[in-house]
């Protein structure tokens, strides 16, 4: 009997230690997630799925606008974050929104809209100066007297309404994102698009 226990003792000790150690193993794992779907880490702020869905909806909406799309000559558009304001309580990289919108619209419009790269102004200036100074040749495209002027520019605003129920720990945030295409000659707005969503979350009672 004594021998059996002597043999069992190290086994029991090993099992007990193993049991404790395996309670919560440290094996960090990385997984790709669908950017259009809600991720594993969630909050009530502006997230990737909101960006993807919103730009998709806005691109479809703009493509259906006759003023922009049925123009005899492709309208020139500046689509950047300069006049796109974040007045919300969510930290947002506005350029992610305007970059994605521009890229998707550029692709979908297939030449029916031309985008003016104001954000690359310095780059264009530098190349134009080099060409005119004879440092480089003129390239394959015809030279122009000036850089392209724009017909329209994107404006807009991100706003939020927050609500909190202190007793239950429930929290919600309503986002409204307004996009507007402003005629840079007349100030008219031939296209506006609104995208909104509301998220709510309940913090665990231990955080209330």
């Amino acid at each position, binding site marked *: 009997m004594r021998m059996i226990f002597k043999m069992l003792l190290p086994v029991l000790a090993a099992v007990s230690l193993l049991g404790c150690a395996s309670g919560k193993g440290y094996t960090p794992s990385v997984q790709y997630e669908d950017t259009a779907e809600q991720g594993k880490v969630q909050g009530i702020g502006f997230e990737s799925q909101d960006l993807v869905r919103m730009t998709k909806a806005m691109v479809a909406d703009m493509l259906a606008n006759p003023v922009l799309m049925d123009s005899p000559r492709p309208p020139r558009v500046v689509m950047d974050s300069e006049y796109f304001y974040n*007045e919300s309580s969510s930290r947002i990289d506005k350029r992610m929104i305007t970059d994605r919108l521009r890229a998707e619209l550029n692709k979908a419009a297939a030449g029916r809209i031309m985008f003016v790269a104001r954000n690359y102004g310095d780059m264009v200036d530098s190349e134009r100066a080099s060409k005119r100074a004879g440092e480089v040749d003129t390239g394959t495209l015809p030279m122009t007297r000036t850089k392209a002027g724009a017909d329209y520019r994107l404006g807009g605003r991100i706003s939020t309404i927050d609500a909190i129920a202190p007793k239950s*720990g429930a929290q919600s945030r309503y986002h409204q994102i307004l996009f507007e295409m402003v005629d840079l000659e007349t100030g008219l707005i031939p296209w506006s698009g609104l995208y909104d969503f509301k998220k709510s979350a309940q913090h665990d009672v231990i955080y*209330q």
Partner: protein
Amino acid sequence: MMSFISRTVAACLCLVLLGCVAGQPERLAIDPRYDSVAPALQVYMERVRTGGERNAVLNWEEAGLAALELGDTDTARSAFDEALLRIESVFSDTEAAAKARSVWYAESIKDFKGEPYERAMAFFYRGLVDMWDGDYENARAMFKSGLQQDAFAEEQQNRSDFALHMFMIGWCCQMLGDYTAADEAYGQLREFRPDFATPSRDDNALVILETGGAPQKYAAGLEMSELRFRRGATQGVSRVDVRGLPAYPMEDIYWQASTRGGREVDRIVRGKAEFKVVQESVGKVMTQAGTAVMASGMRKDARKETKYVGAALTLIGISQMVMAANVDARVDARFWRNLPNRIHVVTTHVPCAATLPVVFRDGSGSVVQGGATTVRLLPAGNGFLGRATFLSSLLYGQ
């Protein structure tokens, strides 16, 4: 033979307990770029690594503020991002949360997110970094989110009364040229600080002055189940002047900490404490009764079963006392140690980045020891922002 078996079983139990107790918190893997931070920040980074996920928010907050103190805004930016990412993520029914609710674990088993005043301050400091980055829109978003945290206060009259954040929202709007929104924010601020003079539209520089030590949390009351606060060190500073201008005492962090009111989790912790006390009392009574019954069962004229009944009662009583001893009703008293006691603000107009004289004074107007210093205004978008502290926040994090 029996004694050998019991010794063996006891040894195994000891090993089980030892094995569990000896388990260290999982180290947090952090970006290798933090290996090259200033030596004074290394201690904070090591704390982030060794404190694990459970203390990540707290350790990142302290590291972020220490980095800000050293003028390392890059590290401060990413440290507060790490903290806020966790604060803003919503998890429910996690293993740690379940444990924190159970009677066998202290509340501090949960991942730290801090009390509303701590969360609000994390947003505040991230907003300051945004301002230095010239991003007043996201800075304003941070101050708005910080103000939201204060809305979790249970006492109605103290909800969303973080005057500091209201002022910062107004200042951001002013720097963005949105004077309508700025006036709105300053109007809201005047409800709580009626004597605050609205900044002039010509003002382009803001100086933030922080004095004293962090409000301290401590456990008290029945089985340490009540969360209480005491004011941190003030070092006698009661006013601050910048370039001869009196800075406005905009926020009292201790006041924000201590006026939150009860928490929902307090009811759970209180329940644990009461359970522990009841189990202890019942166990004690049963043990005493069992011992008395056993004693009477030892008498010659007693029935044989009496001592067995006594032994059974004693055993149940002891087991209840053991159970009570294992109930942990302590509240979570971890706190952000390098926060200030008070925050003062002053706005002014400067033509370019400058260094301004700062004087920290006591109640009688005398300069406190070491209270004559300077603050460096750094470009912040189309304006300037400076921050000075009396009592280095590094001191409190060490």
